[in-house]
């Protein structure tokens, strides 16, 4: 694809600014009415979904040129998809996120790169992860757990930990617990351990498409070889890329793909996983963009006039996963769920995505702080989410704010109630 392939999308922008707001039916207050961290932080129209489309059109028409300033504007965006959802409330013919992704690919093609992103891609090429950690340590998170090594044995469920869970010591107990919960439920769970690689989704988001394709090939071959009937991941980013990006690149995963929350909910429903302990907390849930609106499965690459595209083929975020994590929270004895104002398709982003945390960390935590404020406004005892990137940046923001407002992973909550097996402890 090229930027010019999205010319009709960009020309279609009416500059109505709906992309800057929570869909209007859902605006509940002055304070939490906006949906786009980028335009809220930087204010110029160029930092909105519409503004970036206009940048693309302006460049296509030769009115302006790509330069360092423009590239930075393009990258100061979490690719959270909130603008796209808001736009698609009204429009059938604009795929805003696709344009944003194409702008990044254009930057890479033209050599306008963020130094921090280059370091990330370099880490990917050398160590197969986006965190600059050594490849040989990737499987250490699972040391001592009764998991199948898919490099030597076939399995029923392939557990893809993802980069952040594999290396972040603060999240180790969560990822070990996630795997143990599946084993507790009687599943034969395999991992690639040291051989697990990044899903490649972050590379795609940064505009490095060749790298993304390579990693998709790698994951695909590993899934096939494992014989797994199910690929499950606790990483919301990975989940979205498996569900959307891979099929879009023509690399559909040949088995069921689930996020850990979807599988846990199923196991609870089937009685294979039982909550025992009370969790007497009032909790609010943060929808990770990549599990929610961005986790909507790939439908079809519509080639015709998008004005005539059937509604059922419009990717508007509705088919993302919103209920599974909430159902887990609801199933916790003693726990109560209270909602923030911006939820589901119109949730405010945590701030970490799209390469923002790597290149513009202050903007990432600025975004996360707003989410913490929104969570505190509910009166909840803590915020629960279902993505390692969200957990990490929200915790960092909470620390920065000095609030000590707790941020949990859904898996942590499940473990509290199931009773954490000793072997799961890091």
């Amino acid at each position: 694809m090229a930027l010019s392939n999205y010319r009709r999308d960009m020309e279609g922008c009416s500059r109505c600014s709906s992309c800057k707001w929570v869909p209007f039916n859902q605006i509940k207050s002055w304070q939490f009415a906006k949906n786009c961290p980028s335009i809220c932080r930087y204010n110029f129209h160029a930092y909105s979904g519409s503004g970036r489309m206009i940048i693309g059109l302006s460049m296509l028409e030769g009115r302006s040129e790509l330069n360092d300033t423009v590239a930075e504007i393009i990258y100061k965006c979490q690719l959270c998809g909130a603008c796209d959802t808001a736009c698609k409330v009204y429009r059938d013919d604009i795929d805003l996120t696709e344009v944003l992704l194409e702008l990044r690919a254009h930057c890479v093609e033209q050599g306008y790169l963020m130094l921090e992103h280059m370091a990330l891609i370099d880490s990917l090429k050398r160590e197969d992860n986006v965190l600059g950690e050594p490849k040989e340590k990737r499987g250490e998170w699972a040391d001592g757990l009764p998991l199948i090594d898919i490099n030597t044995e076939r399995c029923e469920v392939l557990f893809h930990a993802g980069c952040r869970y594999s290396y972040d010591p603060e999240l180790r107990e969560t990822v070990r617990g996630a795997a143990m919960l599946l084993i507790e439920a009687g599943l034969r769970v395999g991992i690639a351990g040291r051989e697990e690689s990044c899903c490649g989704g972050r590379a795609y988001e940064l505009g490095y498409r060749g790298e993304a394709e390579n990693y998709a090939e790698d994951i695909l071959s590993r899934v096939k070889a494992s014989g797994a009937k199910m690929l499950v991941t606790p990483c919301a980013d990975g989940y979205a890329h498996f569900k959307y990006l891979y099929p879009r690149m023509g690399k559909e995963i040949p088995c069921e793909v689930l996020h850990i929350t979807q599988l846990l909910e199923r196991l609870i429903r089937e009685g294979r996983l039982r909550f025992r302990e009370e969790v007497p907390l009032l909790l609010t849930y943060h929808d990770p963009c990549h599990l929610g609106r961005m986790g909507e499965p790939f439908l079809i690459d519509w080639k015709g006039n998008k004005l005539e595209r059937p509604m059922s083929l419009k990717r508007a975020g509705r088919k993302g996963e919103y209920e599974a994590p909430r159902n887990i929270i609801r199933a916790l004895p003693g726990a109560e769920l209270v909602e923030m104002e911006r939820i589901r398709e119109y949730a405010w982003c945590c701030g970490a995505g799209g390469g923002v945390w790597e290149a513009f960390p202050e903007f990432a935590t600025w975004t996360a702080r707003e989410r913490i404020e929104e969570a505190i406004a509910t009166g909840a005892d803590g915020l629960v989410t279902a993505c390692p990137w969200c957990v990490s940046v929200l915790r960092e923001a909470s620390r920065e704010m000095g609030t000590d407002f707790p941020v949990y992973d859904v898996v942590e909550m499940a473990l509290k109630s199931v009773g954490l097996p000793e072997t799961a402890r890091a």
Partner: protein
Amino acid sequence: MTLPHVISDDAYKELEEAVGKDNVSREPAVLDGYAWQPTINDDPAKWVKRPVAVVLPGSTEEVQEVVRVCNRHGLKFKAFSTGWGVYSGPTYDNVVQIDLRRMNRILDIDEKNLIVVVEPYVCGAQLQAEAMKRGLNCHIIGAGPVCSPLASATSGWGVGWDGIYMSYGHRNLLGAEWVLPNGELLRVGSCDSGLGWFSPDGPGPSLRGLMRGSSGALSGLGVFTKCALKLYEWPGPPQIKVDGLLLDAKAEIPDNIRFHLCFFPDRKRLADAVYDIGEAEIGYLATRTSVASFIYTFAPHLLRNIAKTVTFRALLSRGLKWGFAIMLVGASRDEIEYQEAVLRAIISEHKGLSIETMQIIPIGSMMLMNFLRVTAIPLVFRMGGLFSTALDRNDTWDSQLDWAEVGERIKSKWIDRGGILDDLADNPFMALYESNMWAHCEEIFQYDARDPKHLASLEPMFIEFSIAAIERSMEPFSSTDYRMRKLVSPLMGNYNEWQKKISESFDPSRAADTGMYCDEMDFDFSKIEPELRARLNRIVEKFKWTEDGPPS
């Protein structure tokens, strides 16, 4: 393409000092975010003049300083609030765009006196959400909840479906803080006397007529940084609980709200019924509608198919033509029952029928938020990407129905030619004011700006609409289009000469961008049929004012 008009380094540095370095830009790609203004813009290019810089002031003082910088350096300024529509963009080559989005606070809600004080970047949806928590509501304009209530009240138009109960934008204005084109600050109304914001006309200066006239100066006379607006009673819940985003909405419908879709056998019965509704003083929101316009709004895919089917086309265009939508809101069960009984009696007397849609949950949910918050309005972009409007005017309800028929006839011709999208032609935006005797009508048409045939149709169609308006002694969108202004002003007492004089008095150094206020330009008459041009010439010759006064 002749683009580069640049700002001097000295002027740019002063703008940086005025608002801070992070709040000013002259990056071409950033500036183009302000130059792309396709909505209600019949220029096929869709780009307006690119500003030489954009600034994001955070306070009234910063706005004043930006305006002074423009005065010192021979630059012009153009301010906008939320930036909806072509009126927001520059019309000169040396314009500093003032984007007011950092001035975004609701400063005060005086519940007892039904007054709110807002800054420019508060949008209608935000204000309504906060007002409803306090049992109050605000007028939201027809362009939708994304728009700034301050902008429509001080600088533009303020027409909407809630006009029957909440009137229109500038009628709700209770005072304003106004940065004049030379940077001085003027407070209009009682707020200037330190007595609060209860009155726009004093004690304190009352300059509403000069300040905004009929249609607003659209930043051509300065920048408004605060204003007070009247609020209204909202006897519903503090927050209407809705699942879903729009078409999938499921709402908890309060039992003191009813929404009736009414149909009448002919135009006269519809007109008479609405006058009776006005005399009965019932209704919270109301508009004329047709089933076709609902289908085009909510199901354009379906309409594309229906448009090809002669039978359905006839049914929708004629059988369900004379429709009227009205929302009733009662402060008590007795009141809502009274209002509904009155409505049913009026409908019956005029041989109409009605469907109470709140009982049909999927439709009722959609209608509730669509009308209360005007949330469905941006669907006007859905059919082809863009829309425009013509024949904007205010007059009696009866004559507005005539006007809608004129618009429908003109549109039908252009639909047949393939110049605009087929929405079955009958699609006026109509609203009632207060007791219903006075109403608003503008004819909406949709097009796809990516279709060259549509682009080529825009200006000649607009001229045709305008000629039709002039022939009927109507005000055809004249206040905002510099071509219409030039054409119409001589027929209307040379009103624009007065606007120019006001502009010169307030703005001796010509710092404000007056393109949308009092500038004039010629239409490209070569694009229209000679017979139309001849018709126009005959009217202009007959009715134009001379220096001695009106035509004999």
